[in-house]
């Protein structure tokens, strides 16, 4: 099975790059390509379970109607998709970045690691895409 590695760096709700990265990962998993993700700096907050959807008075929608996206739900959805598809999926949060941000409560299946884990993921992948923040 081919595997791709992605390094993400943007914090949630800041950049279009985040949604694009999730779409790329989703597309890879649907094509039975394994994915390894290393979340660096602000990207460790993507998997935080403390994110809450909200109502939106400007949109005129209730909490239920708004169905506001949360990146931690996207991470969980990718984990489920990989499981259903029978392909590898590994999400590693940079440990020091987690500590700096207090981003400890995360989606089940997300683990803590270091740049050494990223390098190992890269060696096990056919290619690696770094998507840095700007």
């Amino acid at each position, binding site marked *: 099975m081919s595997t791709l590695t992605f390094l993400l760096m943007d914090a949630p709700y800041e950049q279009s790059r985040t949604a694009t990265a999730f779409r790329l990962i989703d597309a890879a998993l649907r094509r039975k390509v394994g994915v390894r993700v290393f979340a660096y700096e602000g990207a460790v907050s993507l998997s935080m379970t403390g994110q809450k959807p909200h109502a939106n008075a400007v949109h005129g929608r209730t909490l239920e109607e708004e169905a506001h996206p949360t990146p931690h739900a996207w991470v969980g959805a990718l984990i489920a998709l990989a499981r259903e598809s029978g392909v590898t999926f590994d999400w590693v949060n940079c440990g020091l970045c987690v500590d700096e941000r207090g981003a400890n409560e995360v989606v089940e299946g997300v683990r803590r690691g*270091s*740049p*050494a884990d*990223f*390098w190992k993921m890269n*060696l096990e992948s056919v290619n690696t895409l*770094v998507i840095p*923040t700007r």
Partner: protein
Amino acid sequence: MRVLQIIEPAYRATLEEQDDTVLWFTRAIRAAGAPADVLLCGTAVNYSVRGQDAEGFRVGGWAQRHPPVIEHEITKLMESGARVAALAEDLAERGIPTESMLPGIEVLSRRSLGGLCAQYDRVWKW
């Protein structure tokens, strides 16, 4: 598997992080066995300048004890065997003369970028 780290934005959160996060990351993966080199371009060519001082950051009664020392980061990378280069055109745009640069940093022209990238298995643009 050779890696080229191309760094463009400079001083992004360097006071909070006490370093540049990509230089730090490069040192960390080199320690894990990655043969990673660095190309500075855009505003990051300023990292090649000697004698920078980021001391003095204070917020209320809080004062930073260990400010970032980018010169040290670059020097440590080169001491570990990494090749560090900076783009000539971006240095010239910013008026950075070669005599103000840290010794050991190569100066490469933009025209040589294609050939440079071809020497690496992975090229990661930050």
